[in-house]
Structure formats: C-alpha cells, structure tokens
C-alpha cells in the first residue's frame, strides 16, 4: 500500500476529503456571516441555528409532505430566508443605531430560542436523513473510494460560494450592496431603498446558511445542536480570515477545513482545537486577519 508521511495513502486522502467537506460548510457559513456583517454590522450568532433549521426543514418536508431532497434544496433556503427576513424587519432592524454588540446579543438569544424549541420538540439526539437515490453509492477513483454524495457537496458548495461572490462583485444588485456598505446614507439619497436592501441581505445570509444545512443533512445527523457547535468554529474561521473580503472568507473556510482534516490524520487528539490554535497564531502574527482590513 502506498504510504505518505508514514500514513496509508487511503486514510490520508479519506481525511483530506472529510476536511474538504467540513471546509465547504465553513466556507458557506463564514461567507454568509461576512455578507451580513458587511452591510448590517451585525454578527449573526443565529447563523448556526439557521443552518440547523435548513437541515430540519429538509427532514420535516420529507417526513410530512414527502418533498424530496432536490426540492428541499431550493425550498428549505427560501423558507428559512423568509423567516430571517421577518426577524430582520420586525426586530433586528431596531438595533442598527446601537453598538454592534447588541446585534450579537440579540442573535445569540434568537439562536438559544430556536435551538431550545427544536430540542424541546425533537429531542437532543440526531436523526438520520437518507442520501438521495441519485447520489447514493460511491465510485472508485483508483487511488481512493469516493462516496458520490460527498463529491457532490464539495462541488455544489464551491459553486454556491463562487455564485455568491459573483452576485456581490459583478451584478448591479451587488454593486448596490457594496455601495451601501461603504455609505448607506449616500446610497439612500440616490434613491435606493436601503432598508429593503438590508432585509434582503439578512434573508440571503440566512438562506445560504439553510442551504448549507440541507447539504449537511445526509452527512451529519440532523440534530438541534448541530448549529451552535459549528458556529463557534466558524467564528474562529472569520477571525482568521477577517471579514473584509468575501473571497477571503471562502478561501479561509476551505483552508481551515483541510487543516482540521489533516490534523485528524497526524494528531487526532488535537483535531477539534486546531482551528482555535491557528486563530491564536494568526492573532499574534497578523491581528487584522489574513485577508482583513482592520475593523
């Protein structure tokens, strides 16, 4: 068997793939956080809860309405995005004039409420969600066995990330968003409805999180706690990347996911803290983050 650094190649590539998958979720989530933060100046603690809602939406839709994975992949984000937009319109928008910390605290409370409700209704244990038939099974690449669904997740999340980046950097709507980030008052004076733009952004961010959630449902167990566990890691990712750049958030997400996967190969005990350690090192060397303009 081929060995690499004293580790069987199979195991090495297997962990690399897991790292890449985790990285996809980190990238999708930190991207959403960065988009919301850029415009709203709110750190969305509820991002993890919205990710969890996406997974639950897929599961419940299948259970009660027989809606399959492919439809859920579209419908789930729309439902959660609408929910996010309502929250923004009715409550979050009242906090924009205050210190950003209040936004963090509010969304923290929101996350607790959502998570608590789902724990109350469905228990803390995870529930399985089947891989869609079209993506079941795997393929032998010659050097490793690739479960098709995992390959699909990596590809789709990459497409979603790049799509979001294009939306913000290359479209007219994106130009409005970026302009409103720089100077909301001036953009409003030009006749753009900035409050609607803010609602749209928060809805979009929530929808992205839910999209990641639906993608994650067949890989991880669908559990009320899945959101908070990942969001703390994503916060570290965001600190490492800095929230100044969308592309930075994406790249950092993938990089740290892979770093985590590789640590699992070489020193498994440290695998769940390695991202935090990297965060600490980056803080020492480049306090503003790898891609950050200083906040």
């Amino acid at each position: 068997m081929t060995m690499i650094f004293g580790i069987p190649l199979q195991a090495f590539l297997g962990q690399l793939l897991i790292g890449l998958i985790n990285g996809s979720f980190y990238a999708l989530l930190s991207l959403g956080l960065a988009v919301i933060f850029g415009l709203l100046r709110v750190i969305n603690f509820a991002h993890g809860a919205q990710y969890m809602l996406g997974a639950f939406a897929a599961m419940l839709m299948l259970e009660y309405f027989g809606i399959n994975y492919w439809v859920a992949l579209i419908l789930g984000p729309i439902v959660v995005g609408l929910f996010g937009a309502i929250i923004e319109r009715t409550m979050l928008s009242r906090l924009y004039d205050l210190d950003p910390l209040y936004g963090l605290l509010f969304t923290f409370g929101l996350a607790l409420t959502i998570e608590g409700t789902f724990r109350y209704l469905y228990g803390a244990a995870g529930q399985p969600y089947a891989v869609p038939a079209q993506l079941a099974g795997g393929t032998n690449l010659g050097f490793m066995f690739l479960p098709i669904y995992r390959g699909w997740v990596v590809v789709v999340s990459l497409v979603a990330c790049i799509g979001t980046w294009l939306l913000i950097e290359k479209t007219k709507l994106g130009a409005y968003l970026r302009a409103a980030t720089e100077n909301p008052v001036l953009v409003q004076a030009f006749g753009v409805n900035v409050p609607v733009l803010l609602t749209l952004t928060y809805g979009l961010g929530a929808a992205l999180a839910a999209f990641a959630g639906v993608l994650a449902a067949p890989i991880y167990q669908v559990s009320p706690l899945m959101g908070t566990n990942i969001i703390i890691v994503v916060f570290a990712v965001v600190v490492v990347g800095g929230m100044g750049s969308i592309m930075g958030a994406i790249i950092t997400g993938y990089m740290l996911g892979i770093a985590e996967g590789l640590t699992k190969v070489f020193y498994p005990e440290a695998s769940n803290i390695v991202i935090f350690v990297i965060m600490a090192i980056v803080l020492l060397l480049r306090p503003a983050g790898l891609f950050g303009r200083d906040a």
Partner: protein
Amino acid sequence: MSEMTQTATKPHIERSATASRTYTIFVIIGLAALILAPMFFYPIFLMKLLCFALFACAFNLLLGYTGLLSFGHATFFGGAAYFTAHVVKEWGFPPELGILTGVVGAALLGLIMGFFAIRRQGIYFAMITLALSQMFFFFCLQAEFTQGEDGIQSVPRGHLFGFIDLNSSTNMYYFVLGVFLIGMVIIWRFINSPFGMILRSIRENEPRAISLGYSVARYKLGAFVMSAALAGLAGGLKSLVFQFATLTDVAWQMSGEVILMTLLGGIGTLIGPIFGAGLVVTLQNYLATSQFPVTIVTGVIFMVCVLVFRRGIIGEFYASRLGRKLGFEHRR
C-alpha cells in the same frame, strides 16, 4: 463600543449626596437581608445565588466598566471550579487554599486569553473569547484531571482555617457570604480607583485615552485578568458549595448565562448583576421542576432585554422617577 455603554450605563460616581445616602441605606438593608436569609430560604439555593451574583459582578467589571464583551467567562468560572475541586479532593488542600488556587488559576487563564483577545476590538473580541473558551472546553473534555464527562465528584468541603466545619450548611453559608462580600468590596474599590477611572475613560473614548499617553492594551489586560480572577473566586466557591465541578461550568452556555444576568440586572451598575443573577437563578430553579426547557426562556429574555430593556432592572430604576427623586442619575 462607547454607544453600548452610553445607552446602558452611567458611572455611579456621579451620584449626588442624596443618592449616596440612599445607597448606604440600601446596602445596610441588603446586608441585613443576606444575614437573615438562611432562616427563610434553602441555604444551597442562597449560596448558588451568591456565587452567580459574584460571577456576574466580576463579568460586569469588564463589560460595564471597560466596555469589553467577553463571551468566554465560563473558562474562568469553570476552570477555577476544576482547580479548586482538584486540589481539595486529590491533594487535600484546606478550603481557603483551594479557593486561592482556583483564583490564581483563573487569573492565569485570564492572562493567556486576554493576551490574545485584546488584539482585536468589539465583536471580534467577543468572537475570540468565545473561540478560546471553546478550546478550553475541549481541553477539559480530554484532560485526565477533570475526569471527562463525569466531572470531579464528591469534593470535600473541609474545615475552614482548620477548625470551622463547612459541612454544616449554616457555616458554609456565612463563609460564602463572607467571600461574596470581600469580592464585592474588591470590585467596588477597583472601579473607584485611578485604575478604574482610566478603564472608564478607555470605554468612553479609546483613541483619546491613547492620545493621553495611556497604554490602553495594558489596562485592558489588567481589567481582563482582574475580572477573570474574581470569576474564578466565584467558580471555586461554587465547586465547594455543590461539591462537584463538571463540564457544564466551562461550556459556552455558561458564558451566555452570565451575560444575561448582567444585561438583565443592568450593565455598568454595581449592584445590577446581583439582581440579574438572582432572577436567572430563581427562574432556573423554578423551571427545573417543570418540563419546559430553560433555553427557550433564556433566549426569549435575551431578545426582549436587547430590544426594549437595555438598561436592565437597576438601570431602569435609576432612570425612573423614583430613582431620580432618590438622587440617582441615568443618562440615556
């Protein structure tokens, strides 16, 4: 940063003479109530309340008086609980030394976390403390001495100074009360010291403090360590009261809880967190017997507080007509 504190806090030193008198009266009434309380309430409940009140006040030292929101204070509370429990149970330390170990340990953890966290401000500060605290949680999950999921159980309370038996809940209560009062006096002295004044100036206007020549980073770190040490005092005490230290104390939910207590009671008021802690602990005790999950209630209170009740109970009281009549001031 300053906006948060402008809406929510007001340095209490600007109280008038009337307010000082009222304050003194309140303190005397409060003290009397605390001394007599064990006759009316279950001592364990009171001790839990005092521990969390001290924890919240320690946290408020950082948020209310320095303007730094730490999302990682569970590390100091729970870390100290582990340290105290370990040295008392395994090494046979007396309780006073055990608590001291907890405080020193928490201060060291505070020094490390603060060293990294003060490199960023505002929400980044909050995220970094949360991430480092989660790292400590994983450390505790895997380390030998914390005994993983089980936690350190049946910690002996021992004899205070070798002759006061703390297994009697009356003795334990007055010991906890004593430590609580010492902690409160330290906090009160600290925020009214020149050091505390500089912290407040940093909170109000950091660039100005820098331009006046203060080494802002060092002052922030000092405040962070101080707050961590006092949170450790509360945590060490708690592990003796309940005679165990578990992962619950170091989990992020605990960091959230202490923020809620402070927010509910009144950020930047000396006594607000005590009331906040009292309410939250009472609520938890009440809900513990019902089926309804605490998390939902906590979350909703959080949202309501942030939306409409940012000054907290004591802040609202200071700003109310009665509060103003008694001489308190609370600017919006």
